[in-house]
């Protein structure tokens, strides 16, 4: 994929928060209101949205380093939470199955949305 590994901060971040409304890339479902989440940089591995089933059971992952940090899950406009996998729940679009868009930490109850996996508008 020729998606840029890192997205330009100035286009998406203002005062340390998401400058724009966050939507699902596939169906346009609204995920976050503008200025409702904190921009953070951290390295985290996430499974790809589309898995190549020919590779037999092994989950293919990529490293992502730009996230929106959401402390309270009710800040989300629309979002899905998967069943728990090793102390996480993955986040999905609430209207289609697209995901993981990020993850939710059981211990802290904080959510993290990957910038590269959502639409900014």
């Amino acid at each position, binding site marked *: 994929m020729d998606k840029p590994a890192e997205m330009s901060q100035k286009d998406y971040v203002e005062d340390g928060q998401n400058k724009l409304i966050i939507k699902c890339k596939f169906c346009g479902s609204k995920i976050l209101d503008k200025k409702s989440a904190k921009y953070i940089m951290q390295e985290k591995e996430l499974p790809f949205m589309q898995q190549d089933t020919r590779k037999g059971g092994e989950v293919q992952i990529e490293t992502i380093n730009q996230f929106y940090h959401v402390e309270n*899950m*009710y800040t989300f406009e629309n979002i899905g*939470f*998967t069943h728990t996998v090793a102390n996480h729940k993955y986040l999905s679009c609430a209207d*289609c199955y697209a995901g993981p868009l990020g993850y939710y930490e059981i211990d802290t109850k904080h959510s993290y949305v990957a910038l590269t996996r959502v639409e900014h508008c």
Partner: protein
Amino acid sequence: MAKTYDYLFKLLLIGDSGVGKTSILFRFSEDAFNISFISTIGIDFKIRTIDLDGKKVKLQIWDTAGQERFRTITTAYYRGSMGIMLVYDVTNEKSFENIKNWIRNIEENASADVEKMILGNKCDLDAKRQVSKERGEQLAIEYQIKFVETSAKDSLNVEYAFYTLARDIKAKMEKKQEASNPPGARSGAHQLRANEQQRKPTSWLSRCSVL
């Protein structure tokens, strides 16, 4: 941080396996993402934000899929739930008959004043239909629960159902709030007006309300 919503309602989707609860949870149940990573893990719950008469309402909707084969849903699952969608499949007689069992399960485990609604799902599959709309309506009358036939596939009445259930919960909550906190006692301004009325009871009605 300030609360950015007016109400938060926890809702459950309940019914036999295969009636389409997960399809009701998602707006687009097309095959596009059925092979995705998410669908193999399964969704636990989702958050949806809706506007109800100018109020911002957050719905936390739990899918009980996977648990229903035990025929009962545990008390922990019901805890705090304010609304329940009882789902059957109009092409599956057994799932309709089991609605009564689910209602019993709710009565045993959920809060007594939980709002309920019955959904007859898959109404797009008319050729395979085993349960008539009339029977669904009859059951709903018997239990005094609202009823609607839905098609998650065609997005028919699914939105309507969630709005209806949410609106009923909101109305019930507002009624409760009013009962425990009558309008007259809410603010200083109202209080003053109430006092004025007490001082000069002009009508028979206002005197009656003081008593």
